[in-house]
């Protein structure tokens, strides 16, 4: 495998910014570099120059590039103990004060987390009282999320997670096997709004009771984490909840004092100040 220089990465981010108005300048360097190397290999570009040339000339290729650049590895019910906490503590708490619940999956990728949420809400009997918006920067992956079609081999792990989550049913009740694929029950997400949205450059567009942004900000550097956290903060109602990945932390963010830690193990935060 070839190696690439930071200056090469800069050339790529500048071109993307100028041509397509996406800003990857403040993505975490180590993973961004690996993503670019992966794309160079996948498309057999002999050099960064050839990749840049293609990006300049081929708008359709940029969509594919974007899909490969962003990390889309996810599971249903990843960290089962988190989902239990959500069901047993957090959501009942939100429902103490109002009848409905609004949820934003920020960076929903291929939708596994959205389906997990819908299953959780359905089993709690409150799916019809929930308003879910799921967003991602990448159109291609959003389409996959909408379709709810997954590789059958992934369902084994998803099922294991679901069992550890201690759901009231069986995961197999929520999908059918078709042509070697797992096809999720579409009624679960019929009221979910899947939308294209870029956390980096996008505007604050609504307010929510609950935001899930797990293992998304790890791909940003600290500067960008600060910027995005401000937007997430602004998108929460006062006393709304923000959930990040199990090994992420808000401690070193500028506005961390506007949140309190509700559950440190599961990284559940509550907004206490506007």
């Amino acid at each position: 495998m070839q190696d690439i220089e930071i200056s090469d990465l800069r050339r790529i981010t500048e071109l993307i910014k100028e041509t397509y108005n996406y800003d990857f300048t403040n993505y975490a360097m180590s993973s961004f570099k690996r993503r670019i190397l992966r794309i160079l290999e996948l498309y057999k570009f002999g050099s960064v120059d050839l990749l840049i040339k293609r990006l300049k000339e081929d708008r359709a290729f940029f969509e594919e590039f974007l899909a490969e650049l962003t990390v889309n590895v996810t599971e249903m019910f990843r960290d089962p103990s988190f989902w239990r906490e959500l069901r047993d503590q957090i959501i009942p708490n939100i429902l103490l004060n109002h009848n409905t619940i609004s949820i934003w999956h920020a960076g929903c990728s291929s939708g596994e987390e959205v389906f997990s949420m819908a299953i959780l809400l359905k089993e709690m009997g409150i799916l019809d009282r929930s308003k879910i918006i799921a967003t991602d920067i990448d159109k291609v992956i959003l389409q996959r999320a909408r379709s709810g079609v997954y590789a059958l081999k992934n369902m084994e792990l998803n099922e294991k997670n679901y069992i550890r989550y201690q759901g009231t049913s069986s995961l197999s009740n929520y999908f059918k096997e078709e042509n070697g694929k797992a096809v999720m029950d579409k009624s679960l997400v019929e009221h979910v709004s899947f939308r294209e949205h870029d956390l980096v450059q996008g505007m604050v567009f609504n307010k929510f009771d609950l935001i899930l942004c797990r293992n998304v900000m790890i791909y940003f550097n600290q500067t960008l984490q600060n910027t995005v956290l401000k937007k997430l903060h602004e998108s929460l109602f006062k006393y709304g909840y923000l959930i990040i990945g199990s090994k992420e932390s808000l401690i070193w963010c500028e506005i961390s004092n506007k949140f309190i830690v509700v559950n440190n193990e599961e990284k559940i935060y509550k907004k206490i100040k506007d």
Partner: protein
Amino acid sequence: MSRYKFNTQYKAVVIGGSAGSFQGITRILQALPSDFDLPIIMALHRLKHVRNGFEEALSIKSVKPVTEPFDKEQIKRGKVYLAPANYHMSVELGNTFALSTEEMVNNSRPSIDITLETAAYVYSTKLVGILLSGANKDGAWGMKKIKDRGGLTIVQEPSECMIDTMPTSALKITPIDHILKIDQIIEFLNELHKHTKQ
């Protein structure tokens, strides 16, 4: 004079291990000088979906507590770090950790190659890489990267390994500086400690 090739002031030690490495790691952590000053950064294969327990198990006998860093946590001297379950752990410019949930590498997450390669990039000649027992080739490429960038490389003596695929894969693709048994690795780290203190 030390028999080891200390040609610089080192900044970090990275250790990779998989099947059969737990006992060796435990012995190494148990025998560390209490004021060992370099950060020790460990990427060990572990159960992907068991988040808790490993850090604690390694800490029991260790001279220093073992911690799983958070994303963007500063790497500090004298600390022992362990890659958390189901995350890759990179060393980032600016001496911080960066975690990621990218695709598995060599069927592994955390992948030893990723930790070793990114550490090699950041520390170049000032890095010591140690690869222990293991059943796949993860870590071999990372050791090559450390060597290519002028760092010091050590593998556990294959005959002592429960499964020697990992060290022998590294030996196949890059000239390794020292092939040592666990006892000798402990001795090496003590020498390194003296060298660092000078």
